[in-house]
């Protein structure tokens, strides 16, 4: 370990985590539309990064472990990213990423049913 995590680091990280939690709840109460979810998830990612770096001491651990953790996160992001691209590109009846077109498509499908 190159540097020890001090008590001061832990307390500052904890205060930041609680503040970010308050920010998450506040953001969820704002009329931000569908971006509100992505803002909440971005804040969650920031909180997770804080826990990883300070509480789990990834910032101060052995270099090899830092590489392993970095690669794990990279593969995880690629996997989640590809999954989301797959979901959003499917021609499902309702797709929030293509909301207007999807609503039109759903209406057309509904209207077409009696035929």
């Amino acid at each position, binding site marked *: 370990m190159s540097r*020890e*995590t001090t*008590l001061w680091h*832990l*307390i500052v990280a*904890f205060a930041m*985590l*609680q503040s970010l*939690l308050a920010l*998450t*709840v506040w*953001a*969820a*109460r*704002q*009329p*931000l*539309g*569908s*971006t*509100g*979810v992505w803002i*909440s*998830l971005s*804040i*969650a990612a920031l*909180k*997770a990064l804080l*826990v*990883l770096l*300070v*509480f*789990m001491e990834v910032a101060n*651990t*052995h270099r*090899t*472990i830092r590489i*392993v*953790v970095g690669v*794990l996160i990279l593969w*995880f992001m690629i*996997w*989640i990213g590809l*999954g*989301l691209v797959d*979901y*959003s590109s499917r021609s*499902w*009846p*309702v*797709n*929030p*990423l293509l909301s207007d077109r999807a609503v039109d498509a759903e209406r057309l499908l509904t209207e077409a049913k009696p035929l």
Partner: protein
Amino acid sequence: MIGDKKRTESAETYRRRRWTAHLGLWVFLGSEAMLFGSLALGFIGLRMLYPEPFAVASAHLKTALGTLNTAILLTSSLTMALAVHAARGTRRVGAPLFLFGTAALGVLFLTIKGYEYYQEYHDHLVPWWSARDPALSPPVQLFFVCYFFLTGAHALHLLLGIIIVLMVCSIDTFSALRIPTVTVECVGLYWHFVDIVWIFLFPLLYLYGGPSQ
């Protein structure tokens, strides 16, 4: 000279042991991330398919209790980090105390979660147990299937964490054995991982039904 050599060897052995334990645990945590990632990805896919029913269903959840539970879990992460910090120091008396505090906060989290489950059972929101409310559409019921599966898997992991923390704490306190610092560190890594999972589950499940939708 021989004593110095032995001490150096011992420090090197400890360093390697610690490195191996950490590496093994990180690989395990990677596999756990894949498990929770799959569940969350499935939930997001269904949410994309049924955005409005999922927002309606999410509005049924008790956001205040979810927020309180998140704050409790973040506090438990601090006490766990303090336990690791104390275990590394020369005076280890604080470590079992912080470990016990961590386990107590974990139990508090599960108690509140259990109360939430009871409320949801009472409100007929458990799709396969309670009498189904005809007002709940199938996509809303699907949300609750995902909700109980995700939070249930998390609660089981937390329960396992509490058992391990209490075992480490009791061995360190009541027996002549001293738990190695590396064990406390590894338990800490697992605990923080369970905390990270909840950090993502909270906005994903609880904050979909707010005014931002």
